[in-house]
């Protein structure tokens, strides 16, 4: 494995300065030492943004997009853990996360297709896609 960015990175971040044991530099290095937690936080943020979209938007299509965003945040977790596990277990079962991601993408596509079909069928009848006008199922 030849990591070209590892080569360029010291140039970019002025490697000599970092390797000196100053506290400020060590904080900087810690910040630029991305591990699994950073991925988890990113995923959590995207998840919550997606939830907010589902809770607040009126347009059904945008709600669908928010759901896609939620699924995507899950995918980030899966892929990150796949890589994490690859390094922990020396390659054993390391690709299950990525494979599961592919399945999630497939299911998301299927869900979008059916959902949009419903939206079109609904629009044909009521000429709206606003979610608070779709309340025929209430008492």
């Amino acid at each position, binding site marked *: 494995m030849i990591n070209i960015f590892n080569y360029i990175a*010291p140039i970019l971040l002025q490697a000599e300065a970092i390797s000196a044991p100053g506290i400020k530099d060590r904080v900087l290095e810690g910040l630029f030492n991305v591990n699994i937690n*950073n991925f988890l936080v990113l995923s959590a943020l995207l998840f919550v943004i997606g939830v907010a979209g589902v809770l607040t938007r009126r347009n059904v299509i945008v709600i669908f*997009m928010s759901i896609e965003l939620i699924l995507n945040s899950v995918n980030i977790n899966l892929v990150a853990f796949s890589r994490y596990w690859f390094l922990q277990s020396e390659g054993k079962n390391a690709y299950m996360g990525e494979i599961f991601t592919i399945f999630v*993408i497939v299911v998301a596509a299927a869900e979008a297709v059916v959902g949009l079909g419903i939206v079109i069928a609904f629009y044909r009848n009521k000429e709206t896609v606003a979610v608070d006008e779709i309340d025929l199922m209430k008492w």
Partner: protein
Amino acid sequence: MRLVGLEAVLFYLFAVVAVLFAVFMITARNAVHSALLLISTLVATAGLYLLVNAEFVAGVQILIYVGGVLVLFIFVIMLVNVKEEDTNMFTRQLIVGGALSFFLALGVIAILLQTQKGNFFTLVSPSAPKIEQVQSSSNISPSHNISQNTIKVGQELYTKTVLPFEIASLILLVAIVGAVHLARERKQEKIYD
């Protein structure tokens, strides 16, 4: 798993783009703008996948989401042709929903902070392993040092997870049939039947 140097920079770049555009997405007035912003988020995510060596998933992500799902979204938006939502972009539970989302975010991040205590933004101890040294590679022929990610994913996909794979294909088939049935007009049905 450590991303250092330029990889870390790229991680923050992609992460900020993803989060920022996601926020824009749920606040955009126009649905087409939302779709375009979602595409940006998804592409940034694909970049994240590349950073953790999941090339195949990154390719699939772009191919399926951008090439398929989001085109479909835009297609439907154009088809239903909704006018811009001038006043009522949000539902009447905007405040409650926003607050709840905020609490959810707090809760999730609190858990993360607690369970992964000490792993965030900590100082790297001087004894931590240094950045790997790059080895000279000018003599290696190109076909031998490219990533094997696709091959590995393919092998695992078609050996260990054959059954889920088949089930996924079945789900797709069902979705196709369902979508055709849903989106077809009565008139069309009458003509073709």
